[in-house]
């Protein structure tokens, strides 16, 4: 009764068991007379069941909680966490994650004093230096605006040091939060892509504190206070790499009135 010749599509649909009974018996009759086609169809059917056997266990696994639809729907109904809260959380987590570093700092001088300066710089370094999409908010081309922004929030004139003579070029900066109020963060890099983060904030009542090195694993920091401004430099490098930069900044700041 099957006048229509058996096509490749019929054979595929036969393998997948998707033919109506009439057509199926037509294909069966065809296969009975064609041993080569029969062998091929047999292998294709075995291939199908092997594939299903390989992948079946994945669908049998319990669905992870992150894919719980009811939870995802409920999460949509809740207002979204504002970006600044998420950022603050990230910052705290980073500080927490630096347990050893924080603990050492706090044992020495608590979360105040010059070690707090270094801590803040390191926390910001860890968050922003590896950020590929937006490590800074204002680029080097907005140098004047950065200086104005920082000066405005720190309530005193703050410059944006030029470190190009030392081989470091300004990428830009942003205002960041610390437990001791706003701080200006500047980011520089050299030709090899080594990033240096500098943090500036108000410190004490106008005095000076000599520079202190902090070395923690592969990250080094230098912090000091100059005329009531706390400075800290951080990079994934030796402190010796930072020292020329520190000298340069101190010299410039001393020269500025």
């Amino acid at each position, binding site marked *: 009764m099957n006048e229509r010749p058996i096509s490749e599509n019929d054979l*595929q649909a036969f393998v*997948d068991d*998707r033919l109506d009974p009439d057509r199926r018996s037509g294909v069966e009759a065809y296969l009975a007379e064609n041993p080569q086609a029969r062998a091929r169809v047999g292998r294709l059917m075995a291939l199908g069941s092997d*594939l299903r056997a390989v*992948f079946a266990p*994945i*669908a049998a696994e319990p669905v992870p909680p992150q*894919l719980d*639809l009811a939870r995802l729907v409920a999460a949509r109904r809740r207002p979204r966490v504002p970006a600044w809260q998420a950022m603050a959380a990230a910052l705290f987590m980073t500080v927490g994650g630096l347990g050893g570093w924080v603990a050492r700092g706090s044992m020495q001088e608590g979360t105040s004093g010059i070690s707090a300066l270094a801590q803040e710089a390191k926390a910001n370094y860890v968050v922003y230096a590896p950020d590929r999409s937006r490590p800074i908010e204002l680029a080097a081309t907005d140098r004047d605006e950065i200086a104005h922004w920082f000066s405005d929030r720190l309530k005193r004139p703050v410059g944006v040091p030029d470190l190009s003579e030392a081989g470091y070029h300004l990428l830009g900066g942003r205002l960041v939060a610390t437990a001791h109020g706003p701080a200006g963060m500047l980011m520089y890099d050299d030709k090899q892509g080594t990033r240096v983060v500098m943090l500036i904030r108000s410190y004490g009542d106008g005095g000076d504190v000599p520079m202190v090195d902090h070395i923690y694993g592969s990250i080094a920091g230098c912090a000091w206070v100059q005329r009531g401004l706390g400075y800290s430099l951080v990079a994934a490098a030796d402190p010796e790499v930072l020292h020329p930069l520190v000298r340069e900044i101190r010299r410039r700041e001393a020269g500025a009135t």
Partner: protein
Amino acid sequence: MQLMMLLVTPLIPALRRYAVSLLRDRSDADDLVQDTLELAITRWHQRRDDGSVRSWLFAIVHNLAISRLRQRRRRGGSHLPIDDAQEAVLAMPPRQEAGLQHRDLVRAIDALPEDQRSVLLLVTVEGLSYAETAEVLGIPTGTVMSRLSRARDRMIQLMDGEAAAQRPALRRLK
């Protein structure tokens, strides 16, 4: 929302399996399925009423997976090395013999061109109809059929090749 929960929830294990089979990484796949579900929640009312929910969801997974694979390739990551990937990612059957066969099969799937692989997985493993598969991939049903046929023959070829390569050279004993 009630209807959506009812229709989408039972499909999640299969969506996850399809994502794993394309990405070969469970945690990438879980993230991808989560993105899919988030999209499904927000776009639920924008979907075409005449299409099947299943092919709509598989299409989202498919398109997200393809763009992730492209990103991976751009980043130079390309495919995970097969030996690491298949054993870590796809549960190994306990028996060794089955394990070897399983390995050949996964290798052969990896060697398929991407467009053939999707068709083969959607039809054979996920059990989508030819029409649903066409809808997921945005191609005519005729194209589904020809890719399916080519994918299957290529699989057999690849697996025969693997078997031949693994067969130790026979030593003639006199």
